[in-house]
């Protein structure tokens, strides 16, 4: 008895050094906890002004501006209670953290900011409304606005005819060049050089995505966000990246070995905020607010701070009646700066391994990421995993019992449920549930997708847990049921007192594995859009990744996942071994003899 137990503890002890290594990797970080850096999520200031790009592709599409309104309704006539807001008195905004300086998450304050969102804050103030931001995924943003998950979508959205089918847009507050970014030394010098043989990266569902498909007639490689697309360009996975100029300007650094080689522009594709289709009062109110902050100089100040660049000929923000913002001569500032600065060619491109090392193992970024991962990411990941685990266990047990029921009206629905939920990718279920059920139950959830996401994860897990329970219950010997029934227990009592407790015990290791999956799958909740304080490990890592263009925060998040999952994995092995060896202890003949003689 004693020997095997010692052997087991030794095995457990073997886990500890591994944990030690993991902790050692992150612990210096905790002690240092440097002052958080806003990263790229801070206004670059007027001094960083740029002139209109010289390498502007011949636009050839000087259409008439079809959508900008001639004027706006007077500010006094706006009825704050008739704007159809989800939460009365508050504009609920869906935004992203991945596109500084337009939209980003300031890690230091935990607030969504950026040029677009600062403008919205100023407008909300003019209108006498509060404002609340949630982070989400661009691919789902417009449909979330259309289904009134958010009042406003703010993500440097370039207005297109296709998008106007889904949502309405305000007047323009920014303009969209888009930039062609390549590795320095690439043979691609302009949009016209792109061919079917090139891998061209875009963010899925953006104007650039449409541009590559519809204008260039090429097949783009699609990414979920700008940071990922850019990281792929840097590592040579794609030949070119077509990005909004603001994002291209924000990301491209000569030391990365990348450069913007050409830009393009269309007057009809200005940048506006998305509003649910038909919510004219809100669209009008935002247009009025925009004109008001242009008139009082707020716009000019924010523009100079966040996005100081020369406006293209023939375009200005706001309605046609709005005054032109009084902006400094950015072209002149840019020219003066260019004189002061040494030629940028002096910056040398780092080697591949140095670049990779910097991308994945930037220690100062680990240090920066650690407090957020610990304080925000870890609790949320644990809450999501535990809540969905509990939901999954309860429903899973019901599914298992229904699945072995003698009544087909219980058996079949359980079967169908299991087949459907096991057959779908987790992310599909989460998106369908969050965006499909979300609007129906928004009065209960307060339009907060956090718990919806946990439920969606729980429903998914239930299908797997149900099968685990079912196999466990079915592995209990038939004699147990017979003995229980022979005592006089009903079927239900026999199941709950005798069969299920044994079945559950046998599948504890498998259940633990399922819980480990849940810890990892909780990262998918990100797709539903989370408040800054609700972000789990992956979301925290990704926002920092987007903010810095460096993958180290994601690696740091990965370490946190390992700290959670590795001990659990070994706990599973331990339980498994114990359960198995427990069986081996059975019925030694010596005991029989001793008993009979005694």
């Amino acid at each position: 008895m004693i020997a095997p137990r010692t052997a087991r503890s030794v095995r457990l002890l073997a886990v500890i050094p591994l944990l030690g290594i993991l902790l050692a990797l992150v612990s210096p970080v905790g002690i240092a906890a440097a002052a958080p850096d806003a990263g790229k999520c801070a206004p670059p200031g007027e001094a960083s002004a740029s002139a209109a790009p010289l390498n502007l592709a011949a636009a050839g599409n000087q259409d008439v501006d079809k959508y900008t309104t001639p004027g706006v309704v007077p500010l006094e006539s706006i009825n704050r209670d008739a704007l159809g807001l989800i939460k009365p008195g508050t504009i609920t905004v869906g935004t992203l953290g991945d596109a500084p300086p337009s939209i980003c998450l300031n890690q230091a304050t935990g607030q969504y900011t950026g040029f677009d969102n600062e403008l919205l804050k100023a407008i909300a103030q003019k209108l006498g409304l509060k404002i609340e931001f949630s982070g989400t995924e661009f691919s789902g943003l417009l449909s979330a606005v259309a289904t009134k998950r958010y009042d406003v979508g703010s993500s440097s959205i370039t207005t297109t005819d296709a998008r106007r089918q889904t949502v309405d847009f305000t007047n323009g507050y920014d303009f969209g060049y888009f930039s062609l970014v390549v590795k320095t030394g690439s043979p691609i010098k302009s949009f016209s050089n792109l061919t079917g043989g090139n891998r061209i990266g875009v963010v899925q569902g953006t104007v650039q995505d449409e541009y590559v498909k519809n204008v260039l007639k090429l097949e783009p490689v699609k990414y979920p966000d700008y940071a990922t697309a850019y990281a792929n360009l840097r590592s040579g996975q794609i030949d070119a990246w077509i990005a909004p100029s603001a994002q291209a300007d924000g990301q491209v650094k000569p030391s990365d070995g990348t450069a913007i080689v050409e830009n393009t522009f269309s007057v009809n594709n200005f940048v506006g905020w998305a509003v649910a289709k038909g919510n004219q009062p809100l669209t009008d109110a935002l247009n009025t607010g925009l004109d008001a902050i242009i008139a009082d100089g707020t716009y000019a100040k924010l523009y100079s701070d966040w996005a100081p660049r020369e406006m293209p000929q023939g375009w200005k923000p706001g309605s046609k009646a709005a005054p032109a913002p009084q902006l400094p001569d950015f072209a002149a500032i840019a020219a003066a700066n260019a004189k002061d600065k040494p030629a940028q060619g002096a910056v040398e491109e780092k080697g591949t391994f140095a670049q990779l090392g910097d991308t994945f193992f930037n220690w100062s970024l680990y240090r920066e990421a650690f407090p957020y991962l610990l304080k925000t990411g870890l609790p949320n990941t644990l809450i999501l995993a535990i809540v969905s685990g509990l939901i999954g266990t309860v429903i899973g047990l019901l599914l298992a019992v229904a699945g072995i029921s003698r009544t087909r009206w219980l058996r079949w629905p359980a079967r169908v449920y299991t087949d459907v939920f096991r057959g779908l990718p987790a992310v599909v279920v989460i998106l369908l549930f969050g965006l499909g059920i979300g609007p129906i139950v928004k009065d209960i959830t307060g339009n907060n997708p956090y718990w919806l996401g946990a439920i969606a994860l729980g429903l998914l897990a239930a299908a797997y847990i149900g099968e685990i329970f079912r196999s466990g219950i079915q592995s209990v010997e038939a004699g147990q049921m017979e003995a229980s029934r022979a005592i006089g227990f009903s079927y239900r009592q026999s199941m709950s007192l005798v069969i299920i407790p044994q079945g559950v015990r046998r599948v504890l290791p498998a259940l633990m594995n399922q819980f480990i999956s849940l810890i990892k799958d909780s990262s998918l909740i990100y797709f539903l859009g989370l408040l800054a304080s609700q972000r789990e490990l992956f979301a925290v890592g990704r926002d920092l990744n987007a903010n810095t263009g460096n993958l180290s925060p994601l690696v740091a998040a990965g370490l946190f996942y390992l700290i959670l999952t590795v001990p659990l994995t070994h706990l599973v092995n331990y339980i498994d071994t114990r359960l198995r060896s427990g069986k081996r202890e059975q019925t030694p003949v010596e005991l029989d003899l001793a008993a009979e003689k005694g």
Partner: protein
Amino acid sequence: MTENSTPSTPQAATGTTTTKPAVPGKTPIVPVSLEGKGLHLAFGSNHVLRGVDIDVPAGTTTTVIGPSGSGKSTLLRVLNRLHEPQQGDILLDGRSVLKDDPDELRRRIGMVFQQFNLFPHKTVAENGALGPRKLRGLSADESRELALAELEVVGLREKADARPSSLSGGQQQRVAIARALAMRPQVMFFDEATSALDPELVKGILALMTECSAEGMTMVVVTHEMGYARTVSDNVVFMDAGKVVEAGTPEKLFEDAESERLRTFLSQVL
């Protein structure tokens, strides 16, 4: 077996010879008669019972013998309606029980299995206490006390808090008997209760069963132990191919068998 457990003596614990307090729930076992009439059961095309009659007067032991597959174990499971008979009737204490709640019926009939079938996730005492607590309305304390009393009867009180898996086969079967007795059944079934035991352990269990018989319980015993059948039982039933071929006193069947099949069977097993 201790003197205070004599099941047919009303409330033995209150007897004069012992100072122990009454064990709650240890009501007297009141044996009743059991009768099966023309019982039929088929699993698909496999006709396991083909009109079986069995009559067990109150307080007597009937042993069922016969070759493997003759339907002996199935007969027990039909008599307590673990399998519902497709034809025939079952009378307990002279009254048909086919319309009763089968769970109710089974509480009145204790059953001991070849493979013990103890609940491995419960301790020995919990195995005995579970039925009384959930089905006889005893409190947790009362049912445990009852279970301990029954364990004492089978000589395993000191194992009360052990897990069944730590016990020997013989000990497990004793616990199974105690578990059945804790329900204070009117009839006891033993389904090849010694077949899974090592030969040297068989004797102890048979002795325990003999004590139960001697105390006047109504018992139906399916067994391959011809010595037990011959010396302990009041009646012997010989089954073959789902039918009762011959029934009667042990003397008659073992010494003066009428049928060729019984004589052949006995010549093979004796």
